[in-house]
């Protein structure tokens, strides 16, 4: 390798003498020469040592990385998605949500558009739910409305509304029994309403009862033929709901 380089450079030295003579006259050659002369050496590296504190810092970083992976790797399971998943804790438990909270969510998605977030409805168009006798009375009334829908004029808090409430049972928009129970519970316990909770088995019974019915209810028949009020205890459901729940227990 070295000898090859040496040969080359000696050849260049001989060539350079001739070249320099020619360069005296040749303007272009002078220009190229000037370009060559301003070119500095090809880059190379010094060998300064790596500062020792850097090595400590990098070691600390690697340590942190190891700890982080142990803490947040979810046991390298394909089905662990939470950074706080603990592989030793057994199967992850489903999160418990109270009927009331679940109902609040269903209400926002399905009901609030017409009956409004504050439960007051729209005057003359959509009846209010807050403080309505239909809502806080016998639970079977609301269950009927939810499962089969409601059609025609109805008097709520002294005003007459003539609208069309869709069915949410299996023949209509097909909410699950749990969702129907939840949203009824929510409506009966929010905005100062303080009526009993409606559970999933209760809605299951009503659904079975009205599965054959294909027409929506009229206001006049809603309160006819009600069964006994099923035993349902109002329980304090969630922190946010305590005012309503407390009011209910006070009754």
């Amino acid at each position: 390798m070295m000898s090859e380089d040496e040969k080359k450079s000696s050849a260049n030295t001989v060539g350079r003498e001739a070249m320099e003579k020619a360069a005296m006259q040749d303007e272009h050659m002078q220009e190229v020469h000037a370009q060559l002369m301003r070119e500095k050496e090809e880059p190379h590296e010094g060998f300064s040592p790596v500062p020792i504190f850097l090595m400590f810092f990098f070691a600390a970083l690697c340590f942190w990385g190891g700890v982080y992976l142990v803490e947040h790797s979810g046991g390298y399971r394909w089905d662990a998605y939470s950074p706080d998943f603990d592989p030793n804790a057994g199967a992850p438990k489903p999160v418990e949500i109270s009927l009331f909270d679940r109902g609040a969510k269903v209400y926002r998605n399905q009901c609030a558009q017409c009956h409004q977030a504050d439960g007051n409805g729209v005057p003359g168009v959509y009846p209010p739910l807050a403080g309505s006798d239909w809502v806080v009375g016998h639970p079977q009334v609301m269950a009927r409305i939810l499962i089969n829908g409601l059609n025609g004029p109805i008097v709520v808090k002294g005003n007459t509304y003539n609208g069309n409430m869709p069915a949410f049972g299996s023949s209509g928009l097909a909410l699950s029994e749990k969702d129907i129970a939840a949203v009824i519970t929510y409506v009966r316990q929010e905005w100062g309403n303080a009526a009993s909770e409606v559970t999933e088995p209760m809605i299951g019974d009503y659904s079975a009862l009205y599965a054959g019915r294909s027409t929506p209810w009229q206001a006049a028949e809603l309160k006819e033929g009600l069964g006994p009020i099923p035993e349902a205890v109002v329980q304090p459901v969630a922190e946010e709901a305590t005012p309503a729940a407390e009011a209910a227990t006070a009754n």
Partner: protein
Amino acid sequence: MSDSPSKSPQESPYSSSNEAVRAELSEIDASIRSAALFFVISAISWLMLGTIFALLAAFKAHEPDFAGTFEFLTFGRVRSAHLNAMALGWGNNIIFAVGLWIMARLCRAPIHHKGILLIAGIFWNIGLSVGIFGILRGDITSVEWLEIPHYATPLLVISYALIGVWGVMAFRFRKGDHVYVSQWYILAALFWFPWLYVVAQIMIIWFPARGVVQSVTNWWFAHNVLGLWLTPMALATAYYLIPKVLGRPIYSYYLSVLGFWALAIFYNWAGVHHLIGGPIPVWLISAGIVASVMMVIPVIVVGINHHMSVVGLHKEVWRSPTLRFVVFGAISYTLVSLIGSAMALRTVNQITHFTHFTVGHAHHGVYAFFTMIMFGGVYYMMPRLLKREWPSAGLIKIHFWCCAIGITIMVVALQVGGWIQGLEMNNAEIPFLETVQNTIPWLKARSVSGIFLTVGHVAFAINFFWMLFAAGAVRAKQGPTLLDDSKEGGIA
């Protein structure tokens, strides 16, 4: 020569042994001249086109009705056309020019069969033009960073292979025993890019993997294009130009080694941090986060290495058009990478994810770091290739200041605005539309920064084509163009 630990900048660059090397360099420059010129011209053309797309997209972000009646100028298409024109048009072309040139010089191996290189370059740009046209026409894919429609990508892959191979060939037939740090980066990146691009194309476009594997592949690719293609090429350029212009060795070989291997090992993992909170196994995300934070190691190492090589010679840096850009880029590399590592942390990412902060970060990296260094590379390379000087120091200054101010405004506006946006989006009390409206002043600031950048690019293009075509007056110019009135001899 590489074995000498000497750091003295006084070492004469005029000694006769080096003169032979310098004559050889001249020969190498001649061998790559036509292809490199073609790539630089293409790169600058794509830069200008990409700038127009960028301005359109930026204006549309706060004036949605602007040019709203043209289907091909809708935001989604213009934005993607901008991204691809800049990344594959400006970025790749300038890498092919500067990267291959540096590789050939350091290997002391002239490019043979330069005709093939030139033709492959022409086909790369034809493929890209078809791709960008396809994007504007509406054939865009739905995958970020891989928007180019499938009928254009095979041509891109084939022409890339015929371009990249010349870098590898130069390395294969290199002279001398020592392999310089720039050569490591360039050689590695020449293999990394096609691997990334082909795997991503196959797993996402041609034979799509099922489910979330696509997203993982997507972000593995998109992030690695930045870190394992643009970044190593820009670092190689900085590693070449800093000691070359200053005539002083790079501070430490050991730091170079550490920096290179830390990048090679850690970066590949980092992309998954784009999917924090997404439905992929959490260990994958955590590994991505750890790798992102580990990137602090190469970043600090490279930062120290560059800084120690420059320290004490700040006046020279400021006078040299090349180094002014390169050092701006090198400083930005440290900043943007440390911010990037922080952004990968879950607590920070919860705020910055899905906001303009990320957009600001992307421009911080690709522009303030990569593009600025490549500008420096062009300022150094062109006088050697053309044997002419840059016609106007004034235009270089306009270029530098407009780009430096412009990109600073953009990064600050998008990151401050994006941070506020993230805090507001996490606050359920604030309606979504309000958070959108609150970003408008920041988006307007970005448009202002876009105008700065445009002015800078125009100044750059004028200077370049003036140098290229206006032979008479420019050719007579003597000595390097420096950004300083004092005429004492110096460096460019």
